């Protein structure tokens, strides 16, 4: 399979870091998909005594503060965060792409209005915006997904617009206009395919950040509600037991960081392999 005229395998093995990143992300995604079939106990089931240490024959990674199997909760704990982050960021990137490319294409007042809205949103601290939104509209998965989308929309618009601006003066765009293609057709059929690599990388890198935000919200008690298994929530539930049962914090932290590091390695590596560093403002490896 070719991407940008390069074999997919050569892209994902572009560097050791890329390979590690892609492997970590793949493992996490496979775990998130198949966890319900693999977990030894229900993720909310009161399976044993509280705070059993890891290494127990019945509970490989021990139990949490109310006696739930910690391995089962860890395996299930990424599903909600990953789903919320991916759907939210996907929405942000898809809608952001349309606004970014159209702003680059039309320029003028339309571009100014879009970019001033983006600037306004970017001036509000991210975690504050998310926290206020959740407090105002509730902490359901739908609300979290929407707020993640709104949070990452402006950043996506800015980056994708920068790439689109490099395409607008090119001859193929002018040719399309001269052929009489409509503005919508130029945006969707001509410009968008030529910014798609940036969009993909943008999606990957924003997803890793979104996973951290969702976990942070859960840790602060503003995200996913108990008893749902969620890594951020699990850290929060275990924080008072840091002296007695440090695994309650360390293990979910390891899961969060391996996914985020994996996403960052993978997205950086792929961007580097596709030669998109300049568009993303990165210096490359």
């Amino acid at each position: 399979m070719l991407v940008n005229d390069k074999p997919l395998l050569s892209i994902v093995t572009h560097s050791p870091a890329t390979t590690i990143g892609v492997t970590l992300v793949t493992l996490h995604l496979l775990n998130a998909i198949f966890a319900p079939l693999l977990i030894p106990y229900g993720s909310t089931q009161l399976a044993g005594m509280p705070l059993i240490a890891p290494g127990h024959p019945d509970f490989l990674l021990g139990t949490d503060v109310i006696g739930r199997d910690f391995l089962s909760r860890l395996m299930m704990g990424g599903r909600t965060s990953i789903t919320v982050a991916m759907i939210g960021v996907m929405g942000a990137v898809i809608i952001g792409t349309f606004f970014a490319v159209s702003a680059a294409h039309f320029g003028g007042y339309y571009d100014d209005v879009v970019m001033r809205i983006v600037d306004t949103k970017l001036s509000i601290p991210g975690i504050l915006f998310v926290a206020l939104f959740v407090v105002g509209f509730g902490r359901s998965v739908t609300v979290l997904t929407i707020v993640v989308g709104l949070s990452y929309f402006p950043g996506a618009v800015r980056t994708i617009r920068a790439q689109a601006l490099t395409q607008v003066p090119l001859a193929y765009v002018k040719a399309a206009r001269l052929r009489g293609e409509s503005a919508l057709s130029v945006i969707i059929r001509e410009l968008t395919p030529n910014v798609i690599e940036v969009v993909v990388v943008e999606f990957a890198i924003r997803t890793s950040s979104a996973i951290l935000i969702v976990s942070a919200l859960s840790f602060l008690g503003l995200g996913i509600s108990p008893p749902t298994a969620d890594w951020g929530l699990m850290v929060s539930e275990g924080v008072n037991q840091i002296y007695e049962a440090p695994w309650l914090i360390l293990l979910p932290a390891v899961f969060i960081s391996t996914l985020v590091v994996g996403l960052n390695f993978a997205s950086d590596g792929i961007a580097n392999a596709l030669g998109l560093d300049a568009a993303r403002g990165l210096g490359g490896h």
Partner: protein
Amino acid sequence: MGKFKNPDRRDVLIGAGSTMVAASLAGSLPMSSALAATPKKGGKLTYAILTRNSKHKSLKNAKHPYSGLHIRTKNVYNTLTWVDQGIDAQPEVATKWEAVEADQTVWEVDIREGIKFHDGRDLTVEDVISSYDFHRSKKGTSFAKKMLAKVEKAGPNKARFFMKSPNSEFAWWAAEYRQVIMPAADVATIGYDGVGSGPFKFAKIDPKRSVTYEANENYWGEGPYLDTLETVFQPSMGSAMNGYRSKQFDMVLSIDPAMVPQFEKMADTVVDVAKAGSQMMAILPKYEGSPFMDKRIRQALTLAIDRQKIIDIVYGGKAAWIPNDTHMADFNADFLARDVVRDVNKAKQLLAEAGHAGGITLPTLYYSSYYPEIDRVFQVMSESVKDAGITMPIELKQKSGYRKWRVEDKKKTRKHRFAMGPVGPRNPGANLFRMARPTYNESGYWHPNARGDEYIALYKKAMATGDTLKRREIYHEMQRILQDEVPSLFIIGRRTIDVFRSDVQGWKAHSQGWSGKFDKVWRS
């Protein structure tokens, strides 16, 4: 005419020196040690609290007893009576109280002589009357507004209280933490100067965060022994724990039971468990279409909860108690324990009879962070009811604005959502009163209901009955009605746990957090 003296140990306790006797009866090791040793004057004690009064917003109102940093008004103020660790009423500003009408509607109270306010003024009957005029005013406390008709002077040191309805447990009513005695002033200004007659005076206030008190050298009672007392609010158990470890605090009140093992491992630390504490209750909204309109579903739900499991998992098997679906605490001598604590088969049968043989999914039960362990309580409860085929989603709401929010949807839910509320432990009359008020949030809104009418009639009868044993029979009948009707769900009762350094003497964890007093606390 029924003088308020029950034929039990209260008779012995009311009178001079009775607070010390009560402390001995409470019988804890720290208190016993304190009595055995000679109290030493001086030093400072800093204690952390995990909940605060949301009204403590600015210096303008921070000294008022209704808006102090927390409900421990006893640091600065006195009430007519005090409820001790055994939940017996003890004299404070009042030295004696007596019902002068057989129906318990009129009470005469002797006011202690020699009490001085912090500004040097003598505390008089006029101050008592003025304070209660405020408490029963529009801005006053719920208890006083609902129960007190008027107060008048009945002698140089005697006040006469006219209750709106009989109240055979006047002495406990008079101990309510906000019903403090303040220097006489008009209703609009009384209390804002922070002048009380308690063992400590306000010294420094950092709104929402901390209050420092200094000793009242002219205190009328024993103590205070500490020179300085400081209260610091901590937003989480973790920060309170770290503050204790780093010696920022000498004491943490009402800790998370899950932290007990950690505190027990610390050197020079005492973990003290009170006889009881607050309950967690849930209103079962009753409106057309609500599953809780069906009594069988209410009964099934309470039978399905594995309360013993909550105690074992969340409270280490000891620091909690099983409620009986009334506001009564298990330390009340009139508490009527449940016949059956849990019966999953019966719960299933009731659900089947109600047309839910395959199980039922209830609306989301909301709760807020009133207690540090509350998340775990609700998770264990939600999981345990699954055994009976009940799916009960739960959701934690932010504490800010929660109280208003849970009673907001008046039209649809008859004033209340399916949501948790905290219930403080009080005397039987106050406990059972809550279900006798059809419009009260915590009544469960079970009216109109024939058994509700029967319950209210029994409550009125009990309040007019001076004899303790006769009252107990009535109280038991009232509890049987509530256990059958289940107007509200009482999930678990907690036992308050305080931790403090072993050189802190004279402190004993109190079931009523607001009634703990620092006047006799000292550092060895």
